[in-house]
């Protein structure tokens, strides 16, 4: 069988799913691109209840079907697209899915959630998840159309930017409603922090999933589905829907008004956004990037995800004498503005928006791109890169845009930068090691651990490297009316908790929050909706009619997924010595709102040991047999 034969596979739909009696299809498709072979998993109900979907499924397949310590860019790595239990239902905030693999940036877990419409469409096409094995010999793309799956040549698409690829796939397949997940040139060029773009303007951004897809010669996965995703207990789900529709205008008012960029100015003013590679406490260019200036200057429209009325996504359609920014690529979010703006010392909003557009067009993670560019700018400032013609400097918006081109195309200095700041520092020597701001080689998100100490502990512990998503947000735990405090109270913790430090109560709160958010990332539900345990139990149990589900079970599922992440780290060769942050978080600022504050190393070490103890792991972070048994994880135990 050859690619040119456009080999196809047909999925028989399960009558129970077609009869709308449950929210999962019961089908997980495996495709081996080397052998052009397809097969289906049809897991039992317990699989869905134990792991829910998303990250839970990703870890299951990585632990059970991928050998240990494989090359992340080799044929043995798996690339998994997984919907959640609630993906595709009518519930707002569920237009999401997760993508996972072994990360070429960190060597650890890559698991990134993405909004939009693609996951919704995959389930409507008949699949809960897609597991890609092997490597195609030539560029291909997958076409999943209402239960029929086809491998097609992508030779003519290789090298194209993401918007062009999406247009061409829709045109050649004759359906403008097709949803496309794809890599751009950055993924093809194996940039270690390349993203997988969905609908062109949404990224499974972190940890280099785009490079894994590129290594498999897989340009895109195009999906079209028409099935209706049902629910076991429609009346019960309507209760959750009623809670959302009656409260979201208040609880999500911030997102309705300005989306995440509404927080750029206030995060800066509170010391939460790192400036000039963590070296400064106040940014003189911040006013240009505040939403008060950003919106009238650049934002022309809004966008949203499946079944969500919030429209938190922004659209930048802009043209002046020097710069054109295409609205197809959406607009920058908070993390992106922080990483490409203040972190690089760039206060030019047009340059930041242009760099964001290019990251979407090439398929690059904006956080790691910004972190690596800021690191490079510091190296240039300190004279560590004399042999290159390209010398990006802090504050230079033109150089910022040029750097994105250079990274994606691996040109000159960009070839070094495409490896990420950790590998680049290793090439440059000891002095450069002081300039990196990473955990497990992944650049930190824009939540400065010098302000948010427990978030910093989460960066050090996460199986995905520095990650702000499944984490405790210190300032939310400090605010009595937050959804974080509401959830912690449901678990019996007294709130609010102190803003600073990693107290014993905050470690306990961290455990609850990471478990809860791992279930959100498996469901897969948007974190912006203020779910409490009672809402999540109501929604998840309605999906399949699991009437005896409890908040404690949500906690146990979350702990199971967190522990599977730990098992994956240990299996891939990580040890407790790797549960750390690079030294940049100890850099003490002389001015600004977090002047003199650092993440105390002793407090961090104490917090991590307490975390291990409370999780039932030994003092090296190895889960005990009793813990594994209690979480039904003995099948995944490592030798």
């Amino acid at each position, binding site marked *: 069988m050859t690619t040119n034969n456009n080999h196809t596979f047909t999925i028989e739909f399960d009558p129970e799913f077609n009869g709308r009696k449950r929210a999962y299809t019961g089908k997980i498709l495996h495709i081996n691109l080397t052998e052009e072979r397809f097969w289906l998993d049809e897991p039992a109900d317990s699989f869905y209840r134990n792991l829910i979907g998303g990250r839970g499924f990703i870890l299951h397949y990585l632990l059970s079907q991928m050998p240990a310590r494989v090359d992340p860019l080799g044929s043995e790595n798996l690339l998994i697209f997984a919907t959640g239990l609630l993906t595709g239902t009518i519930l707002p905030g569920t237009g999401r899915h997760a993508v996972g693999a072994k990360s070429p940036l960190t060597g650890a877990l890559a698991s990134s959630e993405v909004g939009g419409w693609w996951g919704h469409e995959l389930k409507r096409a008949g699949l809960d998840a897609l597991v890609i094995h092997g490597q195609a010999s030539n560029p291909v793309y997958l076409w999943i159309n209402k239960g029929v799956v086809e491998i097609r040549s992508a030779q003519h698409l290789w090298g194209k930017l993401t918007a062009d690829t999406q247009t061409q796939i829709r045109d050649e397949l004759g359906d403008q409603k097709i949803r496309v997940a794809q890599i751009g040139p950055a993924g093809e060029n194996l940039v270690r922090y390349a*993203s997988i773009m969905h609908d062109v*303007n*949404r*990224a499974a*951004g*972190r940890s280099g999933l785009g490079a894994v897809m590129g290594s498999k010669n897989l340009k895109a996965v195009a999906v079209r589905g028409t099935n209706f995703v049902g629910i076991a207990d429609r009346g019960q789900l309507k209760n959750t829907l009623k809670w959302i529709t009656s409260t979201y205008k*208040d609880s999500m*008012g*911030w*997102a309705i*008004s300005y*989306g*995440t960029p*509404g*927080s750029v100015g*206030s*995060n800066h*003013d*509170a*010391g*939460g956004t790192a400036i000039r590679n963590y070296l400064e406490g106040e940014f003189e260019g911040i006013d240009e990037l505040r939403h*008060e200036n950003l919106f009238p200057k650049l934002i022309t429209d809004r966008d949203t995800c499946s079944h969500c009325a919030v429209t*938190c996504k922004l659209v930048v359609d802009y043209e002046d004498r020097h710069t054109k920014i295409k609205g197809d690529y*959406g607009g*920058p*979010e*908070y*993390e*992106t503005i922080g990483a490409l703006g203040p972190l690089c010392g760039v206060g030019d909003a047009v340059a930041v928006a242009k760099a*964001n557009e290019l*990251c*979407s067009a090439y398929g690059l*993670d*904006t*956080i790691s791109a910004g972190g690596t560019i800021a690191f490079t700018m510091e190296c240039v400032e300190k004279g560590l890169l004399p042999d290159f013609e390209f010398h990006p400097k802090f504050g230079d918006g033109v150089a910022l845009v040029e750097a994105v081109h250079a990274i994606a195309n691996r040109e000159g200095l960009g070839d070094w930068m495409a490896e990420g700041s950790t590998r680049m520092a290793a090439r440059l020597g000891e002095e450069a090691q002081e300039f990196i701001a990473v955990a497990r080689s992944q650049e930190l998100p824009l*939540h400065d651990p010098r*302000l948010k100490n427990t978030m910093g502990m989460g960066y050090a512990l996460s199986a995905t490297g520095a990650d*702000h*998503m499944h984490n405790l*947000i210190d*300032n*939310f735990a*400090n*605010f*009595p*009316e*937050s959804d*974080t405090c509401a959830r912690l109270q449901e678990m019996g913790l007294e709130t*609010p908790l*102190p*803003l*600073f430090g990693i107290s014993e109560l905050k470690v306990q709160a961290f455990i609850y929050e990471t478990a809860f958010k791992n279930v959100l990332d498996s469901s897969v539900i948007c*974190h*912006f909706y203020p779910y409490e345990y009672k809402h999540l139990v109501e929604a998840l149990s309605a999906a399949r009619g699991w009437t005896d589900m409890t908040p404690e079970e949500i906690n146990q599922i979350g702990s199971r997924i967190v522990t599977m992440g730990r098992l994956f780290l240990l299996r891939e060769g990580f040890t407790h010595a790797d549960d750390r942050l690079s030294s940049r978080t100890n850099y003490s600022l002389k001015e*600004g*709102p*977090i*002047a003199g*504050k650092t993440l105390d190393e002793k407090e961090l070490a104490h917090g991590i040991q307490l975390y291990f103890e409370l999780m039932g792991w030994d003092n090296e972070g190895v889960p005990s047999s009793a813990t594994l048994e209690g979480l039904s994880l003995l099948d995944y135990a490592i030798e």
Partner: protein
Amino acid sequence: MVRIRVKESLLSSPLKENVPVEKNKRQEITIQVSPNGTVLNTLEHIGISLSRPVVAVINGQSADLGQELKPGDEIYLLPQISGGEQ
């Protein structure tokens, strides 16, 4: 006397009638109050209810919402979110 600065859009309830308020073009209000325990206690005392999590910056430094206030303090309440990429 302490001075609290908060964006009007952050308020989820009207202020008590007897609270003196100054407004500016950035939809911020400035309220002068007497010291009364912590930031949270003071907000409660003057009837401020916030619609979103905030970080308090007191005299230019990020601070715990449970920090005790002293005369002359200037407090800036900054709304926070988490997440959002690309």
